[in-house]
C-alpha cells in the first residue's frame, strides 16, 4: 500500500469540511443542510482515519465507527422531523420556518 502523506488527507478533510460548512450556511432547504452536515461529519471521519493510519493505531477507526452510527441516528431523527415539517408547513425553507426572531 502506497503511503499517502497525512497532509493530503488533512487537505481533503478540510476541503470536505469547508464544502459542508458552506453548504449548511448557504442552502435554504433543510434537506440539503442535513446532507451538508453529513459531509462535514464524514470530513472529520477522513481526518480520524488518516491520523489513525499514520500512528498505526486503531483509535481513529473506532472513532469513525462512532461517528458513522451517530450520523445514522441523527439522519433518522432529522429525516423524520423533515417529513413532519413538510406535512405541517408545506415547505422546507429554513428561513420561512425560523421562529427565533424575538
Amino acid at each position, binding site marked *: 500500500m502506497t503511503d499517502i502523506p497525512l497532509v493530503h488527507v488533512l487537505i481533503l478533510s478540510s476541503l470536505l469540511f469547508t464544502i459542508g460548512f458552506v453548504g*449548511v450556511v448557504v442552502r*435554504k432547504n433543510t434537506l440539503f443542510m442535513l446532507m451538508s452536515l453529513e459531509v462535514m461529519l464524514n470530513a472529520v471521519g477522513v481526518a480520524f482515519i488518516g491520523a489513525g493510519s499514520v500512528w498505526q493505531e486503531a483509535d481513529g477507526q473506532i472513532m469513525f465507527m462512532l461517528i458513522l452510527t451517530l450520523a445514522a441516528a441523527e439522519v433518522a431523527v432529522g429525516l423524520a422531523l423533515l417529513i413532519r415539517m413538510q406535512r405541517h408547513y408545506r415547505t422546507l425553507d*429554513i428561513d420561512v420556518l425560523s421562529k*427565533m426572531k424575538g
Partner: protein
Amino acid sequence: MNLLASLPLYPLLSFLVLISFGKRLSWAVASWLSVGAMGLSALCSLVLFAQLSTSEVNVITSHLWQWFSIGSAKVNVSFYLDALSAVMILVVTGVGFLIHLFAAIYMKNDENFTRFMAYMNLFIVAMLVLVLADNLVLLYLGWEGVGLCSFLLIGFWYQEKSNVLAARKAFIVTRIGDTAMAIGLFLLFKSLSSLNIVEINQLAQTSDVFSLSLANNEPSDAYWAALLLLGGAVGKSAQLPLQTWLPDAMAGPTPVSALIHAATMVTAGVYLIARMNGVFIMAPEVMTYVAWLGVITLLLAGVAALAQTDIKRVLAYSTMSQIGYMMLALGAGAWSAGVFHLMTHAFFKALLFLTAGAVILALHHQQNLFKMGGLLKKLPFESALFFIGLSCLVALPGTSGFFSKEAIIASLWSSPTAGASLWWCAILGALLTSIYSCRLFFLAFLGDQRFPKDLVISEHVDTNYILRAALVFLALLSLFGGLFTVDLSTVLPVNNKSELSPDWLHIVAILTPFIGIAFSWFYFKRYRNKGITSLEESQSSWVVFCRNGLGFDVIYRFLLVKPYCFIAELNRRDLFDQLIMLSARYVGIWRDILSASQNGSLRWFAATFGLSMVGLILVVIL
C-alpha cells in the same frame, strides 16, 4: 442641660413640631407654640444676661459635643456668651419675640400659617447659633442657616413669580459674599491653625506669621483674611457692592422684613466684624475700607431712599444706610458704638416695619406712598408709633437713635482709620436720613387722603390689643433703649485716646436733623398740604434712576448676568457631558453590532458560530 444650651432649643423644638404637623395644627396651637417658644428663649436670655452682669466671670460657655477635628484643631458644637453675644441674643430673642407675636396675628388668615411660623422659628435657631458660636465653623453654619431662612421667607408667597425671583436674587447675591467668607476661614485656619474665635483674636495679635508680611510691599495674611471676612459681611449686611438684594427682599411678608431684613440677619455682618476685631485691628487698611464702604453705602442708600414710592422700600434703603453707619463705626474703631447702634436700630427699625405692616394691612395691601396720605386722622395710633420710630431714625435728641448715632459720629473725627472727611460724609448722611424720613412721614400721614374715599379701613390689626401691646413695647424700647447701655469693654477694644474733638462738632451733629426737617418742611410742602387728592410720581429720569437703586441692577445685569447666561447658552450641550457621553456611544456601537447579529436566522447563527471557531483556532495557533 444648662440654660445657655437650651436657648436655641425651644425654637428648634417648636420648628420641628410645626414643620412635621403642618396644616393639621390649628391657628391657636401653632401660634401658642411658636410664640411661646420665643417667649421662653427671651426669658432665658434675660436670665443669662442677668447672670453675666452680676457674676465675676465675663464669659459663660457651654460645650455640647465635638463636631469634628482637623489634625489637632477641634471644632466643637459649643456656645460662648460674652457681653457682645449677650447684646445680640437679647436683640434676637427680645425683638424676635415681639415680632413673632405680631406675626401670629398679622399672618392669621394665611393658609400656610404654620409653615410661616416654622420658618420664623428656624431663623431664630440659626441666628442664635450664629451669635453664640464659639468657633467660626459653627458661626458659618448659623450664617448659612439664616441665609436659607431668608430665602424661604422672601419667597414665602411663592405663587407670585416676582417673589420667587427676589428670593433667588437674595440667595445668590449673599452667596457671593459667603464664598469670600469661606475662603477667609480657610486662610485663617492656614495661618493660625485654629478656628476658635477667642483663640484667633488672641493669636492674631501675637503670631508673627499672621501679621507681618514677608516683603514690605506684600499684604500680610491679616490683610487678606480681614478683607475676605469683610466680603462675607458685605453680602449679608447689604453693603456696597452686594447691596442690590435687600430692596427686592421686601417681597416677603412684613414681619419677615422686620425680623430678618432690618433687625437681626442683616446686622450679622456687623456682628462678624465686631466679633473678629482682633483680626481687623491687625489690618488697619481694611478698617479704612470698612469705614469708606459704610459711608458710601449710607450716602447712596440715602439718595435712593429719597426717590422710593413703596413704603417698605424706603425702609429697606434706610436699613442699608443705617448699617452703613454701623460699618463706619467699626471701621473707625468705635466698636461698641457700632454694636450699640446695631441694638437701637433693631428696636426702631422693627417698630417702623411692623407699624408699616399694620398700615399696609389697614389699607388692604396698599404699599404705594403716593396712594396713602392723611393717615394721621384715620390711624392715629399707628401714626404716633411711626413718628416715634422715625424720630429715632433721624436721631432726635433723647431717643435711642440719638445716643447711638452721636456716639458713632463723635468717634469719627479723631479716629486714625477714619478722619474729618468721613465725619462730613456721616453728617451729610444724617441730613439725608432726616429728609427722606420727613418725606415718608408727610406722604403717608399728612396731607389729604389719596386713597379711595370709600375704602374701609381694615380693623383687625388696628384694634387687636396684643398687637398694640407688642408695638407699644417696641416703641418704648426705641425711645428709652438708649439709656440701656452695655459695657462691652470686656470684649471689644476701647479707644483710650482722649477725644479732643472740638465742641462745634457736637453742635453740628445735633443740629443736622433739624436742618433736614426744616428743609423738607418747605421743600415737600406739596406732600403735607391739604387739598391735593392725587399725586403723580415724578417721572424725570434722575428720579427714576434713584428709584431703581442707582443703576446697580442694570450694571450687574449687563456685566455679570447677561454674560453668564450667554456662556451658559453657548455651553447648553455641556462640553464635559459630551466627553462622558463618548463612552456611552462606544458601548452603543457594540450594542448595535451584537443586536444585529441576533437576527433569528439559523443560517446566520451557523455562519457566525463556524467563523468564530475558525477565528478562535487561528488565535490559538498563532
